[in-house]
């Protein structure tokens, strides 16, 4: 059975999962970094609009899902999208209710938090040993497991 955007069979191996997760981490970092740069420079244009939508629809959600539900296969696209729009909408609405509407500063916080969480998830993922992998370490006489 083929693997696609929508349907992923259970036979997908952990190795592919990690490789895809790394690629998504990189894409999220690029989108967030580029958008932070463009907003700081005050540059206006189609690219900034696209990056804003890409960030709002995916990045914060991926930052959460990569940490809290890293083993959920098949939810690499839908769940981050859902969590992302939920979080961004909640944050924007609450700042209006609290009369602290500063959308660009709010974005700075969301972007920083997302990058930090994605970094933590990446470190945790890379430090996790794939099952069956041979690990070499120094052992002193008398050490026990």
């Amino acid at each position, binding site marked *: *059975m*083929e*693997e*696609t*955007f*929508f*349907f*992923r*069979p*259970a036979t997908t191996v952990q190795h592919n999962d990690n490789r895809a997760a790394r690629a998504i981490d990189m894409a999220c970092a690029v989108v967030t970094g580029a*958008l932070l740069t*463009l*907003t700081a420079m*005050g*540059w*206006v*244009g189609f690219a*900034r*609009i696209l*990056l*804003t*939508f890409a*960030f*709002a*629809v995916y990045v914060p959600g991926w930052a959460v899902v990569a940490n*809290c*539900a890293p*083993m*959920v*296969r*098949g*939810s690499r*696209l*839908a*769940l981050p*999208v*859902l*969590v992302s*729009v*939920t979080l*961004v*909408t*909640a*944050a*924007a*609405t609450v*700042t*209006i209710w609290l*009369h602290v*509407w500063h*959308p*660009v500063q*709010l*974005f700075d916080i969301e972007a920083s938090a997302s990058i930090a969480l994605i970094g933590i998830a990446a470190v945790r993922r890379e430090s996790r040993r794939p099952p069956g992998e041979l690990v070499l370490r120094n052992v002193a006489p008398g050490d026990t497991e």
Partner: protein
Amino acid sequence: MSMARRSTHGVSRAVGRLVISDALLPISVVLWIIGVRQIHPSPVPLSILPSGSVFVFLAGLGVLVLSTGLLLTRSNISNHRMTLHLGALIVMLYGSAPIVFLEPRFAWTYKHTAYTNYIAVYHGLTQSMAIYRIWPGLFALAAWIDKVGGISTPLVYASWAELFFEILYALLFAWILRALLLDERERWLALFLFASANWIAQDYFSPQGFGYVLSLGVFGIALHWLKGEQRPWITKLELGVCRLLEREHTRLFGRWMSPTTTTSSRRQHPHATNDYGDRAAESPAAPSRWFAIVTLLTTYGVLTFVHELSPYVVAVQLGVLAVIGLIRPWWLVVAMLAIAVGYLAPNFNYVNDTYGLTASIGNFFGNLRPPSSTVAQLGSAALLTAKASRVLSVSMWGLAAVGTVRRLHQGRIAVDLALLAFSPLALLVFLAYGHEGLLRVYLFSLPWSACLAASALSAAPGAFWHPRAILPTAALAVIVVLFLVTFFGDDSSNVMTPADVQAFAFVYSQAPPGPLMTLTANFPAPIGADSLKFPSVEPLLGSDYPGIARLGSADIPFLTTEIVSNGGGVTAPGYFVVSPSMVAYAEEFGLATAAQCRTFLTAMDRAPGWRILYSRGGATIYELAVGP
């Protein structure tokens, strides 16, 4: 030499793997591009008597449906090909309007952009937003996007909201489908039916369009990670019905009823209270249950302040699943309802006074009436649209009923999908929702109806021209045609032209605030943040219209009195606006003829106290100046 031979061999192998759909898909896309480019942005792009360009557009869609049907009959479903076909279908159905029309299509879009602009400019909510200030989620999100994206108004992207939301719906529904007991063929067919039967048009730049994204997300989390075991008495009931159907109907519908699916059935596991089948094979890993519960309740909480109705429908649908044990923990639904009711409670009096919530409780059959039932006389296009929408809705529900019976006969679980598909009807016991209750019922029933319809239509792989194999393609083709009529049929009056938008942009940007009346309720306003300073007066041909003969010079005193009673001409100027879409709307819904509108406007040109402030492209703004 050997390299050349190897290369030739590789090419011939690649060519051997090609199927006819690999040629049909590009052909359909090219036809669609040619058709869309040729369609003039007039208000009637898909009239019932198609012009050459519309014919090319329809041919593109026809080839795509044919190609999809061919793929569905193959023994090995190619997910890459199906994904491309689904993407093409969504773009063709929902991406054509923003390409053809220069302005956002629906009048209702514009007030949502005005509320967004208000938040962006004044950093808060206002009483002028009426009910929308209680459910500001979409406007807050859009205002945030505007500021971060350096956009001045959501009108920049509002036209594309339909395509954007439909892509998100498809994505989330595809995710949901992996949690349901369907085989690959049924899943793909359900996705195509779902994408092509959503005629409600809630997917424009609107809270309900965004709320539907969150609603599907809540269903996705619940069905993937909070699914419990079906209560044994339900399983026994299903098994009983299964045996009864087998005894009574096998002789009549034997071939049609025979299993075509790879999912497990009650026959294979007669004592099981749960059925895993394909779903279990695809979801071996799950997040912590608490992560799922927290994510679901957070998403539901946001849905509660995005849209007023959606949280209750979602709670009802998940509630019935909790009753039969399919959603666990049971208190989750109680918590959801507590969030929704707790949010509404402080605003209940205002909402009830404005919209009469309690007045429609218990009036099921009254609440069942569709929006068209409130209009005295429909024009030919509106009549056709109303009929097509009814046929499409009844067809989907009919196919869902047939799918339920077929699944039960095949010994498959059907009760969860059937409950999800038909439980939204309970909504109509409580409210009419401005005679749009039935539309919402259809909308929330659609994903599950599409699944059951796919079970009804799905056939074993075989030759395309076999009567059973051609059925899904024929059904999809009929649904797409009905969708086109329903979705675009009212465009003669629905579509906002540049003349409409420019007239309102002029009055809001150039004129001092004052009460504003329009000919009909079909107008693109308010638009900007400051347009909320213009008090809106009930349209002349609205529900309070007292005229006996529809629209004539005798109505001018009534118009003037209405404007003056709102302060127009006394403390501030007053305005009366007429635009091409309003005249088309008046004609289509039997409010006035075009000739009556012309006579009335001629009289307005000479009416004492009134002067023409703006006139361009068929749109005219009359001003009642302050003074004696």
